């Protein structure tokens, strides 16, 4: 009998259907990968299984019985445990305390032999048998913390372990530790759901793989029945056609020249030359350093060093104001966190970086601002009638346009840095954003973007720089690269060599 199954799960957030009629079945002693691009519905699926969200339709079955998982505690009681990317350990407490923290079985005084022994046993199961129980968690590496978290779940009789990109920030040796722990769990009869972007890991550690795309279930395969190419085809689909605008870009003069950029602890010795009218794409996963490069150029990395020139002039790092003076603008992937002022009006969002332009002696010129907001709205395709609406009433795609509008300011084209410009944006708005990117290009902007979405990387870039763990793997001109090479570069460059 399957340990865990979902049938016909559907979930909507407002107008967006993020999960459409998804079904899957998990057996004991199975390690199942779940793959899909950003926005495919992986995290929504996990959130439903772990009781964070309720499904709009469909059922979750545990041991064959339909259950409605009400909240994360309830999921834990059912034996479903999540090891999230942001771990839930208390760094100041010992390993022992962390393992028992929040466990309802524990009485007021818990320094009992039984608890120590159980903790020890759980730790041994995940390959940490030699770890002293009194060690503060703050002294452990990220990998060991993940293992402690697995041990904690074991003491709570978890049967299904869900790991969300556990290896994103780990080194090879540490990754191997996690893998052996997972294999040990498997022999113990447990089930593992393994969410990853790294396709190599799917074949290394998983028995089967489920692919989601745009909220739909594409299929589930045994890993010994398919190869990487099949998997990639499943993930990407074949609808690349009209998404990306046609264009002929002619490289202009070099606009942005980066030498020896370092952003500890990830990026080292990074060089880049970017020309006007071009889209340069830094392709890489979390931990590849692509994002850190962009943030450093935007003045948002407090420890960045290196020689950066914009249009021939040296750009002082570590200052957003200096970057903006040099016409270097940044569009964040984290719209709610730093991309958009969600609680302010659309109009104010569009002119957030242009207050100085439209003020005199510190006084705002409201007429100028209104005109600028209307003009920017038209330029980026936001309905002018919505200028007075609050930004959080807009869809994700429209919010992203606000971020573009904010970056557009002034007549003189500059450098536009974009991190995952289409994350969480639906297909229609995606195409619009790609068109916008090309418009910026034609106006003479120099665009540098980071993306972990291979399809997008191949579709929109003039130059692709693949990155892995803080360094450049290769550089491709448009047409030189294909899915396989780039994916190999950013998931496991050793294999490609």
């Amino acid at each position, binding site marked *: 009998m399957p340990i865990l199954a979902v049938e016909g799960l559907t979930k909507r957030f407002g107008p967006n259907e993020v999960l459409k009629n998804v079904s899957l079945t998990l057996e004991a002693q199975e390690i199942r990968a779940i793959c899909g691009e950003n926005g495919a519905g992986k995290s929504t699926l996990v959130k439903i299984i772990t009781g964070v969200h*309720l499904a709009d339709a469909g059922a979750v079955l545990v041991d064959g019985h339909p259950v*409605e998982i*009400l909240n994360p505690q309830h999921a834990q009681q059912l034996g479903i445990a999540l090891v999230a990317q942001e771990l839930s350990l208390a760094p100041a407490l010992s390993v022992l305390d962390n393992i028992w923290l929040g466990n309802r079985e524990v009485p007021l005084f818990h320094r009992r032999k039984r608890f120590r022994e159980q903790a020890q046993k759980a730790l041994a199961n995940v390959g940490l048998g030699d770890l002293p129980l009194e060690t503060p968690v703050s002294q452990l590496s990220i990998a060991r913390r993940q293992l402690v978290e697995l041990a904690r779940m074991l003491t709570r009789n978890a049967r299904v372990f869900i790991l969300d990109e556990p290896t994103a920030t780990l080194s090879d040796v540490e990754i191997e530790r996690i893998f052996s722990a997972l294999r040990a769990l498997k022999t113990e009869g447990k089930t593992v759901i393994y969410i990853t972007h790294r396709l190599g890991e799917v074949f290394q550690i998983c028995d089967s793989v489920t692919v989601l795309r745009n909220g739909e279930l594409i299929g589930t395969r045994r890993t010994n029945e398919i190869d990487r190419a099949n998997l990639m085809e499943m993930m990407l689909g074949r609808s690349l056609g009209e998404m990306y605008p046609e264009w002929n870009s002619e490289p202009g003069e070099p606009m942005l020249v980066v030498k020896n950029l370092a952003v500890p602890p990830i990026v080292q010795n990074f060089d880049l030359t970017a020309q006007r009218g071009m889209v340069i794409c830094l392709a890489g996963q979390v931990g590849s350093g692509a994002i850190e490069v962009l943030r450093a150029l*935007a003045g*948002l990395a407090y420890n960045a060093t290196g020689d950066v020139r914009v249009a021939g002039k040296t750009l002082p790092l570590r200052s*957003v*104001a200096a*970057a*903006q003076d040099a016409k270097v603008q*940044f569009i*964040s992937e*984290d719209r709610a*966190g*730093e*991309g*958009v*002022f*969600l*609680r*302010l009006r659309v109009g*104010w969002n569009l002119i*957030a*970086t242009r*207050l*100085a332009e439209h*003020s005199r002696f*510190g*006084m*705002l010129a*409201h007429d100028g601002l209104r005109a600028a907001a209307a003009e920017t709205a038209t330029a980026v395709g936001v309905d002018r009638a919505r200028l007075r609406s609050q930004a959080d009433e807009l869809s994700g795609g429209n919010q992203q346009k606000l971020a573009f509008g*904010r970056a557009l300011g002034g007549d003189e084209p500059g450098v536009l840095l974009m991190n995952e410009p289409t994350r969480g944006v639906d297909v229609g708005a995606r195409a619009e954003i790609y068109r916008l990117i090309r418009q910026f290009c034609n106006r003479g902007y120099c665009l540098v973007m980071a993306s972990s979405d291979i399809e997008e990387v191949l579709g929109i870039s003039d130059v692709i720089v693949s990155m892995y763990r803080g360094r450049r793997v290769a550089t491709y001109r448009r047409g030189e690269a294909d899915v396989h090479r780039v994916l190999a570069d950013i998931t496991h460059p050793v294999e490609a060599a």
Partner: protein
Amino acid sequence: MSNVSLRSGFLLGGIRARQIVLAVRILAGGALAIFALSTPGFTSPLSINSLLNAISFIGCVAVGMTFITITGNIMSLALGATVSASALVFLASLSLGVFPAFLVAVLFGVVITAVQGAMVGYIRANPLLVSIAGLSLLIGGAALATGGQRIYPGGEGLQAFKGRVAGIPIEALYFFATVVIGQFVLSWTRIGREMVMVGSNLRAAIAAGIDTARTITVAYMLAGAFSAVAGILLAARYGSGDMELGLGYDYTAIAAVLVGGTAIQGGSGSVVRTLIGVTVIAIIATVLLLRGFSQQWQYLITGLIVLAVIMLHTIGERR
């Protein structure tokens, strides 16, 4: 799925929550008006006069507090002490003449809060803790400087800050001036707009290239300046001063800011809203006084009203 309806019922649909908040506001406003107008003596010149006075003293502090709240720094617990200390500075420096004394006192208030604002803005210190430290330093410093004695005016000229012009108490005129200046800064100046942005989303403001530390510091400086004005008005009214003068003003001011509808998490609100909040709170206090409730009851009822307003806003924010 019974549970779904249960959850959404508890959280209230977005539009419904907003309508409820609006309805409660209208009802509460109407009830307050009826309650006030039916209170014997409420419309008498004496009562209106004292109402205006109460609004003016608290109001200046509340306008200052609005800037701290709007930039996302919740509130300052040191503004009451800033009121008292500026009053003492004003009285002590009256020998320089009334106008220089006014400037010295305002400057004093600005410096006191600028230091706190700089700590919050540049060092990202917790605003509440900084204000508690500021409060302690002010009280201790004042006790050392005055030797615990009351301070009496060192010169003439207090008339400039009391009495009436065209039947309106001068205090009220100063207060309305602070409202106008405060709202002007918020709506018409670049730094005011930046304050709203900083309070709305600090990280987005940083990414937009706004000098967030300077913006926060300026917001605190305005709070200090307006508190100092309250201190000067109080000093003039009582003719002498000690550190008790502004006691509790910070609490009443934050109550007024919240009742007015400025968001406690920052990023939305206005000085005009604060004006409404101050007025509501002062009317309640006056009505309770006229109806013979003791001071203790006034505190209690004001506290309940503030709690109710905060809960109302929390419901309105949920979506």
